[in-house]
């Protein structure tokens, strides 16, 4: 009997496991901490496996799992209210912007953008990651995070506006490099 159940339940497992890189990228964009992102993904995968019977449509698997990860992330934030590394990241952003080539080569663009994203408020960061990294539609994001579509739009708009300001400031501090085209 168990063999039959296992056989019937089998096909979902590779599907769940295959989403690990997707989840990890989102988790990393949310928390900017590789170890924590890994933990979140692990927790999400095991919760998804336990609750797999609740999933109605196979097509919604990704959104469903990201919604689970959102709960894991919120639980984590609640349990660590004292945890606040915003100042650290602020320092990183500014110190990198001081160097003359800042934001001109790829690694530095990556570092600058990550630091800027890390400084966004938590809610905006979540929406930005879901829309930009995984191209979820606004309606899907609203479903995943359990917020109205209007909130998704306003958070995204504010996130992109502040991101632009932060990156503009970083570039202005960098020395002008005429030949290098800034992807801005």
């Amino acid at each position, binding site marked *: 009997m168990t063999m039959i159940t296992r056989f019937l339940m089998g096909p979902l497992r590779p599907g769940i496991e295959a989403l690990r890189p997707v989840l990890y*990228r989102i988790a990393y*964009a949310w928390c900017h901490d*590789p170890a924590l*992102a890994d933990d979140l993904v692990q927790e999400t995968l095991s919760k998804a496996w336990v609750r797999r019977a609740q999933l109605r449509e196979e097509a919604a698997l990704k959104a469903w799992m990201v919604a689970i990860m959102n709960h894991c992330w919120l639980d984590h934030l609640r349990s660590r209210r004292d945890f606040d590394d915003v100042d650290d990241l602020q320092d990183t952003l500014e110190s990198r912007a001081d160097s003359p080539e800042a934001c001109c080569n790829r690694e530095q663009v990556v570092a600058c*953008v990550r630091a800027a994203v890390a400084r966004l408020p938590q809610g905006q960061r979540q929406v930005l990651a879901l829309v930009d*990294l995984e191209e979820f*539609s*606004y309606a899907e994001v609203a479903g995943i995070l359990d917020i109205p579509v209007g909130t998704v739009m*306003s958070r995204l708009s504010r996130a992109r506006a502040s991101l632009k300001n932060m990156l503009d400031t970083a570039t202005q501090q960098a020395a002008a490099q005429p030949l290098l085209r800034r992807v801005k």
Partner: protein
Amino acid sequence: MRSFVSDESLNAFIDGEFDVAESESLIARMRDDPDLAQRVGTLRSLQSMVRLAYAEPPVAQGWVERAAAVPPRQFMQRCAFGCLILLAGLSGGWALRSLEPQTAAVVPAVVKSDYQTVSLARVADPNRVMLHIDSAAPAKMKAVLDQAEFFLDQAERQGRSIQLEVIANSHGLSLLRAGVSPYADRIARMGKRHASLQFIACSQSIARFSHEGQVVVLLPTAKAAPTALGQIVTRLQQGWTYVRV
């Protein structure tokens, strides 16, 4: 005076939330309104920068440590087991090789079959395309512009918002050199008509021509990137489709 388009709407547009009619009217407005086009361009670049920033997130240390913490005996067993699975997988794959579907990137729209098309995504994205030219043959130059216009017109008809880059390096640079390019007028017209079209020249190629004593002046619509290859790799990582003409 037409109403001001809110940032929320522009975001919805670049995220593909608009329907065909809405996209069409916004694209039409962008054509007359350089400020609007500029705002859309800025949002798009922000989006691609965010995508690039998380294309390769750093791997958690934990994976490595956990793997290293396995005792040697168990490690050998795991190795042997792994080899077995690998062998089974290989032979399975070999047996099923004829059943495997075509995994080559699906070519967006109608690209001539002799053009090389590359995309890292499973399905090539028809809305973010770069056309690469590295030859000064007039036929190639015409072909790259024809192809670009074809993509842009087709996207416009279907109400999609497309981003297109024409990347020129090596001898292909002639396409974008003022006084050399046979298509300077056409490029200026295309650049004015399509806000989402970019012409990009490779700075290394420019430097090489300059070394040889030639004065390289780019067309006003063209921009320079540090290297064409770097630009192509970055774009591929951001999910763009590459077409070599």
